[in-house]
């Protein structure tokens, strides 16, 4: 049952050191505020699960909070490489991390399998590719009807999933629209679900019947954080801060610049700063 909490309480209550956690969002609706709160609370030894670990995972890895990253594309979207993640993999700085790598298709279907209560996802994939050689979690099954060998991977079942969404109703139902990504699946696959939202509205009455909604009984905690996706965007609320993504390439290229940026922009502030960050993007 969805409980409305301050973000700090929602994170403290639902994210534990050592958890497997997904902060999902496919370019749109990336839960930056929630990830920053996790960083402030210093919750470590995490297994980070996400199709596109971008800035927030670069930040968590750079702060030494990740033990393992399960992913399919580790880039700064539209800009280039993730320099803190590279530093961890290439130079074990600030610590070594384990990587478990899949394709997008595999990751999306592993979430879907998790949401469906299945132990695995089965699909036609990875043919001729090298990932099955380096990721022992990629196995194969034989179709009993055609004899074809199909890829099989374990379902994703995160301990907790964090997502950002447009609206919650007063009951705690959550509405996601626009590029909806894999958030519904990531939420339904998880044991616990925490959602940050732009705003709370009395109800969703009168909305289109086929919108993407997570009922309140699928959610554990909701925190209202206007601007909470910045520098990602929230469809209908504010635009993507492309400049911030370009900036990140420079900031993350240097260990010192990174540390000082994290200190002043994450550790020394609270979730309330996000509202101001999106003001000029509305």
């Amino acid at each position: 049952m969805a409980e409305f909490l301050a973000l700090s309480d929602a994170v403290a209550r639902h994210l534990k050191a050592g958890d497997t956690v997904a902060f999902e969002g496919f370019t749109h609706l990336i839960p930056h505020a929630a990830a920053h709160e996790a960083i402030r609370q210093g919750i470590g030894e995490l297994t980070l699960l996400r199709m596109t670990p971008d800035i927030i995972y670069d930040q968590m890895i750079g702060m030494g909070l990740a033990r393992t990253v399960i992913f399919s594309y580790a880039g700064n979207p539209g800009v280039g490489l993730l320099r803190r993640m590279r530093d961890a993999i290439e130079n074990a700085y600030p610590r070594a991390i384990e990587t478990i790598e899949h394709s997008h298709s595999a990751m999306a279907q592993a979430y879907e399998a998790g949401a469906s209560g299945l132990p695995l996802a089965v699909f036609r994939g990875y043919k001729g590719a090298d990932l099955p050689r380096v990721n022992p979690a990629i196995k194969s099954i034989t179709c009993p009807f055609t004899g074809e060998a199909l890829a099989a991977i374990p379902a994703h079942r995160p301990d907790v999933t964090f997502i950002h969404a447009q609206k919650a109703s007063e009951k705690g139902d959550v509405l996601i629209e626009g590029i909806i990504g894999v958030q519904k699946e990531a939420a339904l696959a998880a044991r616990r679900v925490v959602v940050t939202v732009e705003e709370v509205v009395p109800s969703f009455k009168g909305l289109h019947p086929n919108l993407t909604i997570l009922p309140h009984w699928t959610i554990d905690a909701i925190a209202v954080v206007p601007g909470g996706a910045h520098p990602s965007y929230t469809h209908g609320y504010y635009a993507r801060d492309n400049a911030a993504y370009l900036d990140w390439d420079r900031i993350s290229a240097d260990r010192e610049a990174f540390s000082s940026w994290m200190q002043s922009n994450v550790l020394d502030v609270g979730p309330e700063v996000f509202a101001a960050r999106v003001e000029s993007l509305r």
Partner: protein
Amino acid sequence: MSDFTPNEMMTIAAARALRNDDVCFVGIGAPSAACNVARLTHAPGITLIYESGTIGTAPEVLPLSIGDGELCETALCTVSVPEMFRYWLMGGRISIGFLGAAQLDRFGNINTTVIGDYAHPKVRLPGGGGAPEIATSCGEIFITLKQAKRAMVDKIDFFTSFGHGEGGDHRQRLGITTKGPTLLITDLALWRPDPESKEFTVTSLHRGVTREMVQDNCGWPVRFAAELEETPAPTELELGTLRDLQARTEAAHQGGRRG
């Protein structure tokens, strides 16, 4: 047009290869520009799909990421990412998939994962994203690449996605039923796989490009077609469309800057 850059030529040559009834899985960068130039010139009916779930988009400016709001706002519809990969990509509904490469071999196999050893890489690249299944599920694959010796290599360090493998009928032997890479568009030339060996062969040189320039920027001994064409220079419409698109894009991406 007398004045154009090799990158512009590459993008426009890629745009020309697209047909009005194609359904394209678009990546960021050169493919995105090429697909939208095609849409704004000779192929207004083309369907552009970005892996963020947007189907039939018609962006005014090029997206910086594959999930910009512009893509959703101009799309016919937007589906979830699992649906995108299941029903649309793996369901076999995409006619053309675009791929870029950090390393490419002569058979169209691509590496965007690591330079060096996978466990202890010299450079950790972003990885494959959708590429492993794009390479095998789309009807055909077009590859765009700025030529360089370190990009066009004899042996790639990691098979992020499969092209023609060791050449010949290697795809069929793996049970893959799609055509794989049928066109490589570089800043210097157009390349097509040899019908038998499947090795990429230069079939057209862009204006002002020599065989030597192509070989100097390629890490394997280049094969040239018996009848080598010259790629027609960009028309005024093509170049104007591309430059307008890029100007609009640049202006848009400057926006939203805060202190």
